[in-house]
């Protein structure tokens, strides 16, 4: 028992000494050097921001039956080559009615880690016409990464490293830009009274 206690005390003493700083010492003859170090620590938590928001604008619709789109990231020669061609299947292949070439919306995400981005449309003062949106990364307009309407869509925003920047307000340099294309389907002329309508797209960013 005594031997065990002695051994325990020795072990405790060794561990305690291990936590105490010891000096580094030695000769400096013949251009010798000595050095010691202090470790420096920090931690960064997950952080993100959404900026550079631009509204989706369908413009003023003619009112005739068909699918109207608001896009601009992709400018093809034929409506089928543009957003209409990718969304018409959701609208029973209804005919193309019109497009606002500069009607695309956008938002930018900057983060220091991979995050999930969720998008959802809320029809505040909207019509009864079917509506659909798609998100695509800048430079890849035909590759939709999320589809949504009143049912939420989501995609993963991967951390994109940006070098130290002198212009912290230039989000183009520090964030990733995502475009939003939109489409609505006027199914019959009297479906919606002439006038102005608006809705809201909510963007939610989370760690998972």
């Amino acid at each position, binding site marked *: 028992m005594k031997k065990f206690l002695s051994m325990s005390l020795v072990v405790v003493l060794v561990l305690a000494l291990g936590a105490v700083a010891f000096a580094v010492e030695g000769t400096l003859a013949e251009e010798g050097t000595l050095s*010691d170090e*202090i*470790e420096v*620590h920090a931690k960064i938590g997950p952080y993100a921001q959404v900026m550079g928001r631009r509204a989706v604008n369908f413009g003023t619709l003619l009112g005739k039956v068909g699918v109207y789109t608001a896009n601009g990231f992709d400018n093809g020669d034929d409506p089928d080559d543009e957003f209409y061609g990718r969304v018409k299947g959701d609208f029973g292949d209804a005919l193309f009615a019109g497009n606002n070439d500069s009607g695309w919306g956008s938002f930018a995400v900057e983060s220091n880690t991979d995050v999930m981005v969720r998008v959802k449309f809320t029809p505040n003062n909207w019509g009864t016409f079917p509506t659909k949106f798609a998100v695509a990364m800048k430079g890849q307009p035909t590759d939709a990464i999320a589809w949504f309407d009143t049912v939420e869509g989501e995609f993963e925003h991967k951390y994109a490293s940006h070098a130290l920047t002198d212009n912290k307000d230039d989000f183009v340099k520090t964030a990733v830009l995502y475009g939003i294309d939109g489409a609505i389907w006027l199914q019959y002329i009297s479906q919606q009274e002439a006038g102005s309508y608006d809705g809201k797209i909510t963007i939610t960013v989370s760690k998972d």
Partner: protein
Amino acid sequence: MKRLTLLTLILVLVFAMNAFAAVEQGNPMDIDLTADVEVELGIGPYASVMAQRLEYDHAERVWGWINFLGWKLPAKRLEHYWDDKVEPRMDFGEFSGQAEQSKFTDSNGFVVETNTALTLTFSGVPLTHTLHEDSKILTTYWAFTTAGQEPVWPVENWKLFPEQITPKDKIGFFGEGSVPRYTDGRFSHTGVLDGILHVLGVIKAKDLWPKEGEVVQNLPYTGITTNGIYAFQVFGFASTDAISSQREGDYVGKIILTVSK
């Protein structure tokens, strides 16, 4: 045979007399004899360097004796206790990840014991992500001489700060990379008692902040000119840049003190 013996005795006498000639001659019973034997010794340049951290433990009022108009009276006095069994470390704590969030802290520092004049060189490695070396937090360090080193431990009750963490003279800023950003409203200090800020003679943190051009990679100090024990304190500045300039995660850096003859 007799001649041989006599010759041998004469030879022995001659040799003996020659041996005595090597010392001061004279009758040691009548005069003082002194002789010098040289003794030679050299001590090579030698030093020790120790990283040290002191953390404030607590203060309490204890009974003791005070002098009052020549009378010794019992009274309670305040005693401060510092813990010197702490692992040397500079810890900035946690950043939220917000752009241009800045922090200022201290490490306490180094104690150098030497038997000769020394040249010291301070250098530092910026906070670097433990998994992604391209992700760094802007970091700059600031070296000071201190008031000295406490000869008595624990610190005597009338001293609020041990000498080795009382900054005295600025040595300079050192580090690698860009200088940390400072933005009003996004600054905090950790691990540094407010009293030290007053000792440094500043009111606002921005007065402390290093500027581009003031920071060197290797900071020399040649103020040690003789043997003794010297203490140095190192403070640290760190900030994020843009949100995506540095990843979420753990970061480690280093402060290095090198001594040479």
